């Protein structure tokens, strides 16, 4: 399986993601610089955590307008799976590949800690190795993870079963405790927590391993 990590100038968790992907797939992911618009065909595109272009405006808003995201959108339309983590999730909602928006945490403070997530959806390539209702422990590290959507969108997202992960307990004010959602096809996942930082015993937990292992299995070429 060949994956590509999109690197914006302010990305800062691309290394964490690369380590997790390599550990799961045995293969070094491509690093695609944000100014490139042409990169080889890949089995997975990962948008990593960080602060894409500084995010002084709205997180991910500028990245959503970047040339590379036009290309990511085109690949998504062809069915290439996309995984957006943290800033990557913010970019996906700003791009419109996922519904809703991510606002400042309800506490108005950055939050870095390990949280419990409930797995809500297992019929995706990202979550196939989890069991419905599994509680997994994964860190969050964000200032803008408060998921919101208008009532109609929220109803649709819930009705379609697009919620992949939910926080157990209050973390950042997210509507319905939503921590991660997919698009309607289940080929695009965005989530605020960092499964890539829960893939090694030294991280204090390995509950993120199944996500990457599941991808490696599903996308094995």
């Amino acid at each position, binding site marked *: 399986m060949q994956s590509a990590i999109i690197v914006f*100038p*302010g*990305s*800062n*968790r691309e*290394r*964490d993601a690369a*380590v997790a992907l390599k550990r799961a797939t045995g293969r070094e992911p491509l690093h695609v610089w944000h100014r490139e618009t042409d990169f080889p065909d890949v089995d997975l595109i990962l948008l990593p*955590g*960080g*602060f894409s*272009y*500084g*995010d*002084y405006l709205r997180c991910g808003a500028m990245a959503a307008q970047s040339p590379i995201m036009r290309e990511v959108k085109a690949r998504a339309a062809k069915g290439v799976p996309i995984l957006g983590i943290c800033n990557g999730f913010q970019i996906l909602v700003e791009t419109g590949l996922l519904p809703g928006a991510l606002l400042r945490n309800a506490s108005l*403070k*950055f*939050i*870095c*800690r390990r949280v419990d997530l409930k797995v809500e959806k297992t019929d995706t390539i990202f979550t196939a190795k989890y069991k419905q209702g599994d509680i997994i422990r994964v*860190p969050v*590290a964000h*200032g803008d993870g408060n998921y919101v959507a208008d009532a109609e969108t929220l109803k649709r997202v819930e009705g379609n079963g697009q919620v992949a992960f939910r926080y157990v307990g209050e973390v950042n004010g997210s509507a319905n405790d939503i921590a991660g959602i997919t698009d309607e096809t289940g080929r695009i996942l965005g989530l605020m927590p*960092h499964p*890539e*930082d829960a893939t*090694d015993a*030294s*991280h204090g937990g390995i509950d993120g391993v199944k996500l990457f292992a599941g991808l490696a299995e599903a996308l094995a070429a």
Partner: protein
Amino acid sequence: MNNQGSMNAHDPKAVALAKEHGLSPAEYQHMLDIVGREPTLTEIGIFGAMWSEHCSYKSSKNWLRKLPTTGARVICGPGENAGVVDIGEGQALVFKMESHNHPSYIEPYQGAATGVGGIMRDVFTMGARPIANMNALRFGDPSHPKTRHLVAGVVAGIGDYGNCMGVPTVGGETNFHSAYNGNILVNAMTVGLADANKIFYSAAAGIGNPVVYVGSKTGRDGIKGAVMASDVFTEDSQAKRPTVQVGDPFAEKLLLEACLELMETDSIVAIQDMGAAGMTSSSIEMAAKGKLGIQIDLDLVPQREEGMSAYEIMLSESQERMVIILKPGREGDAAAIFRKWELDFAVIGHLTDTGRLVLTRHGKVEADLPVLPLVDEAPRYDRPIEPTPAPAPVSAKDYPLPAKPLDILKTLVGSPDLASRRWIAEQYDSLVRGDTLAGPGQSDAAIVRLPDSNRAIAITTDCTPRYVVADPHMGGRQAVAEAWRNLTASGALPIAVTDNMNFGSPEIPRIMGQFAQSIEGMAEACQALSFPVVSGNVSLYNATGNEPILPTPAIGAVGLIEDASKIAKIGFPAEGLTLLLIGEGKGEIGRSIYLREIHGTEAGVPPEVDLKVERHNGDFVRGLIHAGAVTTCHDVSDGGLLVAVAEMAMESGIGAKLDLPAEAGLLFGEDQARYIIATANPDAIEAKAGAAAVPVRRIGTTGGTALTLGSDSVAVKTLKDAHEGWLPAYMAGKS
């Protein structure tokens, strides 16, 4: 400019102007002797900045020389942007701690943020990628009306900057004391990792080589910041807000990546970040180190604002900027890298053989000064010192337990200085890069794995100002010893120190005496513990009017862990383990938190640090961790033995049954050189301790969900609620 020969500082207007720039009449006269004619405003500004306490260390230099700065691992000691130590396998650690006290009091968010930005630049300037940030913070009394606002701003500023940079903030310390009411301390530390044979230095070389400016544009922020930081605060200090810099962590992230990319090519002769006194100190220090001249056309400096004068450009402390001396012909490739990262890149001048700094603006010479005298002839003062009188000792007998020990314990773990710092730590990304093996509160030192290896480093920041004020000598010794002990308790071999000397006005003999005595105590400890000082920073004039801060020689220290699987954390890992106290105490309660919080007095003599015992006990404990015999260890420090046990219990949720008499000195004394370990094989460890002549004592057994002492008992959860509750409640305005 008219050359008027030798000058005398008679003109009262000129003397007043010099004073505005922090130059005394004698210093101004010395400057005139060097310049030999009427100086321009820009030149006065340059002298004022270079000869400020902040840049010249004029009051402290003679004392700093007493610190040991060499050792087998030291690649570069004090004097460069940061210290460099060899950690084997071709790798080096580059680290330093630096203060941003004055700006953080005036504008806490930006002051703290740019403090973090500045120290990271110091580290990556030398070719190292920052892998961990730490900090040491001191705030005023919680009841002071400004404290809450300052805590909130400083923490957010540190967090936002480090989080955006993608450098984990893995630990630190925070104290509250009324002596900091009008002058908080924000000391930030960065540790970076570099190839030992690819360290970059700041000495300019090569006549004709291009002088290059990279990074963000220059604006009017932070002008005269170094001068501001070299004076005590007065009523109108808030009017100095324009002297506080504004941080842009995204620009710094770009600068970091661009510099590291340029360093991969063979292009750089010398590199220096623009920190305090901006272009002035960077250009002059680089030229002085290379004993060369430097010619700069200020029109070529990228500028954010229109109509900036030579004076403003030279004294701006705009952030995220660097000066680089390139090898000839490398400009094109270097420019391409900075273009890629969307940063300014401009050749602004070249090195000369004149030994002079020559600045032009709009074709006019605005400064023409000899470089070396600006540095070498900077004032150096042997300020009068007055030693701190020895405090009257107190005895534990005079301060008996006023309540049941466990009730006192509950009060202590929920008191401002001992309460959980989680509210702070969770605002810092402590996990990015995926190598944090022990983050805030998990071990006595933060532990960070070296990328793609099984080696790790440990980092700590320590100082106990309430000891230092009582006995600066012992307090200086203790700060170093505690840092060494914390590294040891994590399983690391302590290797080197950075110091951040925060004191009041050096012009007051009593304060200068605190400084001098602290240095002597630190030097002894560094010597005895083979713990050289490789970098540091001095921040004086930390006072508001006549009220100085507590003397605070903050120590940042790093240690090396050769096998990342052999580390120790503080939480009880299981029930049924025996608790052993390594080391012994006399029940010293002088200056203890018990005395302050329970008896309301800050009296007595601080605990003695016997450096021989410290090293002996510490080496023994570290040996146990290295041998894999111990994985749970916590030093006994603030609050004493019972607090240490409680911290171990609260970290894991597992309780303990303690077998200790209800004596204040034993339970709450802060005697040094002690550790608690939890073990399933107490007999083996006691045998080893016996053979090594290290005192050891069984103090209890882990188990259950409560701490039990005699017939008294308290649920770990009750303690934890008190411990975790204070800071969030305080910040929410509820306590």
